């Protein structure tokens, strides 16, 4: 203790300085090391999470790109199939339409021919009927004139002869 006294040891002052240091320790812990440490840890976690998320996103993007390529390839194949199918269908439709048109044309022609024939027959019949009528009328007029002239008996006897 004598040696300590010679270098100025005073337990009162030492205790006061010790207590002051402890207070400084608590102040620094509360206002400096604690908050800075927490902030750095929080930031590190965020950065690590960001990097991890970015890696996941990159992986997902790569998967999505692969899926996109697959979908595009599949779509191209499907499109080609559809185009090929449509072309075939189109040709079939055109062919069918042509056949149908031909058929329709034939039907129309046949029908027209039939109607023309019918009309022709009807006309002939009409002409015949008109002709018969005209002959009858003419004969009637002639008979009447002959009758009027007194030649009725001659005509009747001529007709009876013929009959």
């Amino acid at each position: 203790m004598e040696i300590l006294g010679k270098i100025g040891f005073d337990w009162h002052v030492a205790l006061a300085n010790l207590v002051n240091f402890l207070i400084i320790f608590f102040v620094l812990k509360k206002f400096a090391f604690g908050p800075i440490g927490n902030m750095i840890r929080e930031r590190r976690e965020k950065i690590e999470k960001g990097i991890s998320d970015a890696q996941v996103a990159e992986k997902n993007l790569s998967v999505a790109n692969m899926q996109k390529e697959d979908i595009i390839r599949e779509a191209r194949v499907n499109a080609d199939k559809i185009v090929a199918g449509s072309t075939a269908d189109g040709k079939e439709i055109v062919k069918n339409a042509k056949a149908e048109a031909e058929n329709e044309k034939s039907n129309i022609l046949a029908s027209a021919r039939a109607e023309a024939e019918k009309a022709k027959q009807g006309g002939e019949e009409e002409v015949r009927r008109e002709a018969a009528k005209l002959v009858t009328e003419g004969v009637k007029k002639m008979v009447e004139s002959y009758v009027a002239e007194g030649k009725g008996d001659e005509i009747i006897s001529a007709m009876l002869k013929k009959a």
Partner: protein
Amino acid sequence: MNFLQIKGGIPGIEPEILFKVFGYPVASSTLFIFFILVMFLVLGILFSKKLKMIPSGIQSVLEMIYEAISDFISSIVGKDRADVVIPIIGSLFVYIGVSNLIGIIPGLTSITFGGVSIFRVPTTDFNTTVGLAVASVLFLQIVSIMDFGVLGHFGKFFKFKELFLGFKKGIGPGLLSFIDLFVGIIEFIGEFARIISLSFRLFGNMYAHEVLAVVIMGALAYALPAVWSMMGLLVGVVQALVFGSLIAVYYSLSIKTEGNHGH
């Protein structure tokens, strides 16, 4: 005294008592520590409210200092334990560093009250360094007790069980364990001798620096003291680093590690 020399009295080794509060002496070093405490408190309160996720300005500098201290402590005690001891060892480092460096501010230590300097660089007072050493050694003892338990902690030094088991095996192993017992007792004394080694190292360096500053001013008052002050910056930081790293090393010796299980 002449134009080139400023003669001053060699600073006393004993604490300079400024006044008494309820009969309790308040030394100039205590007042300076209180001044540093208030400074830390004010800056801490102001700063802790302005912390941002994206650092800028002073926050970047403080975070760089924090990272440097953290990396340094991690390299000694390991990453897992570093978070536990950063506040205590960091506080020691910052406090000793600031205490050593703040005295360089011109005129601060020249303010006197009743002929006594109000602010004395705290680490040039043995009572400050011994207080720090006591706090550090107490911290190490508490850490060791928390890790090993009370019996485990004292069992590291007083190896009576090993002595009993040694003699049970034979005279040879018994004598070896007897030597172990003495080594353990010496280690126990060594634990408390750390108070002396830590406090004297810091006090000796800082007090000697102060005394030499006065001597240099007495020899040549121009240019040379500036060089010495720059040397003081280096010494101040190095002494803070030495004190902090020694506590980190002692801490790593006090805790359970792969090679240190206390038995």
